[in-house]
């Protein structure tokens, strides 16, 4: 047995340049197939959960899909906000039961910060179930809190954010304005305290850092008005456990600030719940008819389905493209192996002289194609995992796509098996050539060189 391993290995070594290109080509195709498959599956998972329990999303008039994407998935940017008083106007409509404001624009280490009211945690649902806290509690409404000044800096983490940085209750976090680039100013002087961590939902809120509206406003006190204190070098970034340095006091709004100044001026969007869903069309019309700048009330289910259909189109296109890339790769493999077979006529003649029939030689060539295909697929798996590991964060930030690393799914294995079979089919060409050549040449192949 050791002899045959040596035989295959040394035979391949003598053609290692051509064969490694073949292996690499198969590896690329395999990695591409698996990555596209993964993105399909994960895109479906990421975008099948937006938000449940909310009947309408209100924003400035524009594209409904854009509003859904930036308000719930934090993809793209809002161009305008809506005035704070719109919340009261909407709340006063007879068919409206509750209104939750949503403020966006800040980030914590690449994860979006949501400014909202504690109602979010009681009204929002995922899979028909209300949100659950894995640890801790919601932040309090500052107007109702026992210590309003401290309540302003309370913060709740989504499950993925907590897991990513290993945060626990009591940790202090610093929030940056804007997209979280190093150049953005950060509010290093106003660390927030984690009071709650949500259980995993599969919805975008897993990737959210949630604070109160007052907290959001407190962040921007003095922003753009020259009173901003700026970045203090030497101030530690990131979190630290609530340490002895701050003692029991913790960060709180300075007494110089009047809490009533922390009222919001504008919101990114409003989440609306109705008394009865049967009145959804009336509610939409009533909201869009409110005086003031033009508003849009979006039905999240309808808009999500539209988004979904666009994604389905893209993923089908991606799949077809990937299949064509794989096909191209396989064709070139067949070509490379066929050419290299022509160069092996001497070898074939030697083996024929030793009693191997052309059929057996064909089998030998096929066996080699099998090992090459297998090596390519193993390489592809490795490339795929490596690529995922390197790109996971970027994909999450840019596209809201949450990728699962680890063992490939059944479909992925099926795809790989298909690729291996296709490589074998491609290997039939050189194998058959080996058959023909060895039969024709017999003991007298043409001289080389």
């Amino acid at each position: 047995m050791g002899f045959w391993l040596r035989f295959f290995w040394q035979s391949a070594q003598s053609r290692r340049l051509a064969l490694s290109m073949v292996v690499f080509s198969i590896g690329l195709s395999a990695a591409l197939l698996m990555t596209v498959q993964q993105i399909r599956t994960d895109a479906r998972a990421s975008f099948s959960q937006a938000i449940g329990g909310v009947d309408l999303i209100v924003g400035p008039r524009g594209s409904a899909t854009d509003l859904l994407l930036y308000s719930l998935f934090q993809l793209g940017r809002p161009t305008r906000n809506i005035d704070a008083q719109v919340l009261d106007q909407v709340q006063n409509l007879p068919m409206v039961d509750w209104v939750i404001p949503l403020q966006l624009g800040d980030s914590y280490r690449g994860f979006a910060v949501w400014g909202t009211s504690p109602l979010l945690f009681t009204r929002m649902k995922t899979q028909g179930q209300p949100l659950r806290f894995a640890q801790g509690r919601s932040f309090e409404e500052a107007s109702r809190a026992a210590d309003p000044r401290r309540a302003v800096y309370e913060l709740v983490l989504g499950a993925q954010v907590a897991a990513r940085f290993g945060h626990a209750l009591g940790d202090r976090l610093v929030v940056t304005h804007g997209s979280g680039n190093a150049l953005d100013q950060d509010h290093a002087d106003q660390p927030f305290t984690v009071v709650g961590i949500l259980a995993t939902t599969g919805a975008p809120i897993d990737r959210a850092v949630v604070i109160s509206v007052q907290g959001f406003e407190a962040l921007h006190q003095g922003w753009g008005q020259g009173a901003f204190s700026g970045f203090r070098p030497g101030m530690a970034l990131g979190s630290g456990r609530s340490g002895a340095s701050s003692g029991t006091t913790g960060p709180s709004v300075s007494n110089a600030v009047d809490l009533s100044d922390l009222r919001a001026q504008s919101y990114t969007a409003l989440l609306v719940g109705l008394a009865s869903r049967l009145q959804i069309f009336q509610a939409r019309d009533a909201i869009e008819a409110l005086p003031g700048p033009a508003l849009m009330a979006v039905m999240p289910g309808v808009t999500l389905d539209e988004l979904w259909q666009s994604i389905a189109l893209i993923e089908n296109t991606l799949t077809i493209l990937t299949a064509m890339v794989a096909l191209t790769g396989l064709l070139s493999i067949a070509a490379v192996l066929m050419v290299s077979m022509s160069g092996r006529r001497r070898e074939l003649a030697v083996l024929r002289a030793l009693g191997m029939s052309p059929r057996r030689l064909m089998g030998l060539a096929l066996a080699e194609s099998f090992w090459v295909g297998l090596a390519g697929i193993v390489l592809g798996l490795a490339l795929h995992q490596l690529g995922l590991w390197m790109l996971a964060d970027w994909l999450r930030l840019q596209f809201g796509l949450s990728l699962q690393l680890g063992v490939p799914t059944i479909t992925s294995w099926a795809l790989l098996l298909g690729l291996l079979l296709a490589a074998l089919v491609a290997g039939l060409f050189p194998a058959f050539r080996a058959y023909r050549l060895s039969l024709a040449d017999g003991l007298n192949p043409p001289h080389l060189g």
Partner: protein
Amino acid sequence: MTTSFFRRLATGIAAAFLVSGFSSVALAQTGTKPATGATTAIKEISWDDLISEKWVKEMQAEMTLMGRLGFLEDGTEAANKAMSKLRDKWNAAPIVTTYLNQRVRLPGYVVPLDGERHLRREFLLVPYFGACIHYPPPPANQMMLVQPTANSRIRAVPESMAAVWVEGTLREARLATSQGVTGYTLEAESVRPYEEPTPRGR
């Protein structure tokens, strides 16, 4: 806004009449499987059965009246009042009680409500395609809130604008408005894709 709304309303009402004819031709009574193993039989109904003749005649009268007021200027107070009166009547369309608390089956189009694509998402069932985008929404007695339960037989996620058959128990929904208006809800037993009826004689 007013004239365009008026036109949309007129189209909507015309659509409502068309629907009654439409439903008997396209979404026709095609022999579907009878209910199996149920306590009471499922009755197949049409959207016509959920609307009262009396209300239709009232709306027709209103529309004729509106037509005579066509000389009203857009944006004048009189025009606005007439429009909102019409709109209120539309939204307060009374329900028909004949089939309440019975098991029924009828076809319609899906308008999903939750921003979640899971099997048991709630949706509105409406009689015509494009109810939320291209045409004004249907009157209160020509739509129903479909509420699946944990036991509902649903094999595919109900998609926006998909045509489906729903089966379940029809109920009255009390809406918390000043006029004490009501609407229809359906405790769904099953939601199935709507197949084209095979033409007769084939």
